[in-house]
C-alpha cells in the first residue's frame, strides 16, 4: 500500500521514514504514560499522608474490603496484560486472526474486572461505606473513617475510568484490525495501546496491596 511517490499510506506526510514515525509515537506514548503516573502520583501522595496520620484507621477500615475479590481482579488484569502482549506479537508475525482473538480476550478480561469492581462497589454503597459526607457506616473503629473510603473510591474510581478508556481504545484497535489497517510492517497503534494497558494494569498492582493487604 503506497502512493505514487513510494510513500507508504500509513506514513504521515511530515515524516520521512516509517522508523522515524514509529520512534516519535513511542516517545509520545511514554511521555503520556509519565503524565498518567504523575496524575495518580497526587493521589498516592494523599494516601501516604493520611495513612501516616491515621494508621489504625487504615488498618481497621481495610478489613471491610474483600481480599478474595481484589486478588481475583489482580489475576484477571495480569492475564489481560498477557493477552494484550500476545495480540501485538501476533500482528508482528502478520497473524490477523490471532490478534483479533487476543484483543477480544483482553476486552473480556477488562469487562470481568469491571463486573467484579461493580459487585464490590454496590456492596459498599449498600452498607453506607461511601466517601466524605455520604458516609453512614458505623462499624469502623477510630475517627474519620470516611477518609479511608474517600481515598479508596477516588483511586479505584480513577483507575476504573482508565480501564474503561482502555476498553474503548482496545475496541477501536479491534475494529481497525478487522478492517486490515495493520500488518507485520505497521502495527504501532496496537503496540501503543498495549503500553497504555500495561500501565493501567501496573497501577492496579500497586492499588491492590495498598488497600486490601494493610498488615
Amino acid at each position: 500500500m503506497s502512493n505514487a511517490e513510494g510513500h507508504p499510506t500509513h506514513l504521515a506526510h511530515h515524516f520521512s521514514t516509517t522508523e522515524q514515525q514509529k520512534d516519535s509515537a513511542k516517545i509520545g506514548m511514554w511521555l503520556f504514560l509519565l503524565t498518567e503516573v504523575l496524575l495518580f502520583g497526587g493521589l498516592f501522595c494523599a494516601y501516604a499522608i493520611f495513612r501516616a496520620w491515621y494508621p489504625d484507621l487504615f488498618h481497621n477500615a481495610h478489613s471491610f474490603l474483600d481480599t478474595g475479590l481484589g486478588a481475583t481482579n489482580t489475576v484477571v488484569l495480569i492475564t489481560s496484560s498477557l493477552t494484550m502482549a500476545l495480540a501485538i506479537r501476533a500482528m508482528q508475525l502478520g497473524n490477523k486472526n490471532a490478534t483479533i482473538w487476543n484483543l477480544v480476550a483482553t476486552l473480556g478480561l477488562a469487562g470481568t474486572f469491571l463486573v467484579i469492581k461493580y459487585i464490590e462497589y454496590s456492596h459498599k454503597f449498600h452498607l453506607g461505606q461511601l466517601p466524605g459526607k455520604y458516609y453512614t457506616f458505623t462499624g469502623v473503629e477510630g475517627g474519620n473513617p470516611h477518609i479511608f473510603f474517600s481515598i479508596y473510591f477516588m483511586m479505584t474510581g480513577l483507575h476504573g475510568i482508565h480501564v474503561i478508556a482502555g476498553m474503548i481504545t482496545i475496541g477501536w484497535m479491534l475494529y481497525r484490525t478487522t478492517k486490515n489497517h495493520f500488518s507485520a510492517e505497521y502495527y504501532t497503534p496496537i503496540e501503543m495501546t498495549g503500553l497504555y494497558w500495561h500501565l493501567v494494569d501496573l497501577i492496579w498492582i500497586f492499588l491492590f496491596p495498598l488497600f486490601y493487604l494493610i498488615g
Partner: protein
Amino acid sequence: MSTATATNYLNEAKGWKSWLLTQDHKRIGIMYLAGIFFFFLVGGLLALIIRWELFTPAKDIMEADTYNRFFTLHGAIMIFLFIIPSIPAALGNFVLPLMLGAKDVAFPRLNLASWYLYVIGALFALYSIISGAADTGWTFYTPYSTSTSGSVVAIAVGVFILGFSSIFTGLNFIATIHKLRAPGMTWFKMPLFVWGLYATAIIQVLATPVLGITVVLLILERMVHIGIFDPAMGGDPVLFQHFFWFYSHPAVYIMILPGMGIISEVIATFSHKRIFGYKAIAYSSLGIAFMSFLVWGHHMFVSGQSELASLIFSFLTFFVGIPSGIKVFNWVATMYKGQISLKVPMLYAISFLILFSIGGLTGIFLGAVSVDVHLHDTYFIVAHFHYTMMGGTVIAFLAGLHFWWPKLWGRIYNETWAVVSCLMIFIGFNVTFLSQFIMGAQGMPRRYYTYPEEFQRLHGFSSVGSLILGAGFLIMTIYLLHSIFRGKKVGRNPWQSLTMEWEAESPPITHNFDKDMVLEHGPYDYDIVDAKYTEEGTL
C-alpha cells in the same frame, strides 16, 4: 522571491472549515494567537477596571464582592488562558517546526486537539463568569474555595481541561524536537528558543498532571465533600497548597523559559553576533526546569509548614537565581561589541533585560524567609510577579511577536508606531508597578478592595500608569491589524538572521520549505557566514 500570486499557508485553502479542521502547525499557531489575544484583551480590561476602582479608597464603580470576582478572573484568565499558551502554543507552534527544518510537529492531529481543548477550557471559564464567577483568587485555596458561593466548579473544570491542552502541546514538542530535526542539526546546533521550548515542555508534561488531579480533588471536595482538604472532617487544607504549588511554581517557569528563548534569538540577531555562552544558556534552561520542582514551599512560608522545610525551600530558591543570572550575563555579553540595531524586537529585548532583572532580584528578597514574612501577601508580591510575568514573559512575547510577525504574514508593521507603543508600554509598566513595590514594603496588603488614605497617592500613580499601558497596547493592536492587510511586504529574511525559519518564504508555503532542509551553518555562526558572503555584500 515572493510574488503577489504565490500560494502560501494562508491562501492555499479557503473557508472556515479549512481553518477549523487544519492540521498545519502554522494555522494552529495563528488560531492560538487569536485566542490568546482575545483573552489578553479580556484580562487587560479587567485589570483596568480594577485599577479604576483602586484609584480612590472609597467605592468607585463596584461592590467589594464584585471586586473579588474581578481580580480572580484577571489572574485566572491571564495565567491559564493567556500567558501559559502565549509563547509555546502560539509562537512556538508556528516557529518550532520551521526552526528545525521540519514539515510539521510530530503529532499534527494531537496539535489540533490541544487547540480544541483550549477552546473548551476557555468556554468553561467564560461559563463560570456568567454563572456567578469565582471569588477565591486564582489560587483557589481551600477551605474558602469549598465553601464560597462563587462559581468555583466551572472554572476548576476549565483549568483541568486547559491543563491537558498544555500537556499535549508539551508532549508534542518534546517528540518533535527529538525526532524531526533536519539532518545535521545536532542538539547543540539547535536555536536557543528550541532549548527554551524543550525545557518548558518538560515542565508542562511533569507538573501539569498534578494540577489536574488537584482540581479534580477540589471539585469532588466541593460537590460531594470527600473531606480530604476539610479540617472539620479530618482532612488537611495545607495539603491543597502543597499540591497546588507543586504545579504552580513550575508553571511560572513554563511562562518564563520560552520567553528567555526568544530573548536569546532576538539579542543574537540584532547584535549580529555569535551568542555568548551558547551551552551555558542551553544548560541553564534545563537547570531552571529541574530546580523549578524543588522550590514550591517558598509560597507557603506563613502556611504553618515546618521551619526546617521553610529553610530548605528558601535555600533552594536562591539557587534558581544562578541559572537566571547566567542567562542575563550571557545576553549582555552578546551585545558587547556587537553590531546592535535598535529595531522594535531589540527594544523589547532590552526592556526585558531591565524589567526581568528587577523582577528576578526582588524574587531573591522574597525567597528569604524573614523578609517574606513581612512582605507576604502585600503589593510587593504583586509588583514582583508582574515584573517577572509581564515585564518578563509578556515583554519577551512581544519581542518574539514583532520578530516573527513578518514571517507570519509576509508583511511588516509601521516601525515608528511600534517604537512609540513600545516606549509607552515600558513607561506605563514601570509607573504602574514600581509604585506597588513601595506600597507593598509599607504594608499595603494585596487583594483588598479599599485602603488607608495614606496610600491614595501611590495607588493613584499606579492607576495612571495602567492607562498609559493600556494606550500603548491599543496603538499596538491598531498597527498590527493594519499591517496584516496593508503592511509593507518583506522577503524571506528581513533581519539577516541565521536560524532556519528565515530560509522559508514569508509567509511560508503549506509544507514550510521548498526543499528538504539540511543544516548548513549553526544558528549563530554570524562570523563564519559573514566571512563567506563578504564579497556579495548581503546574505
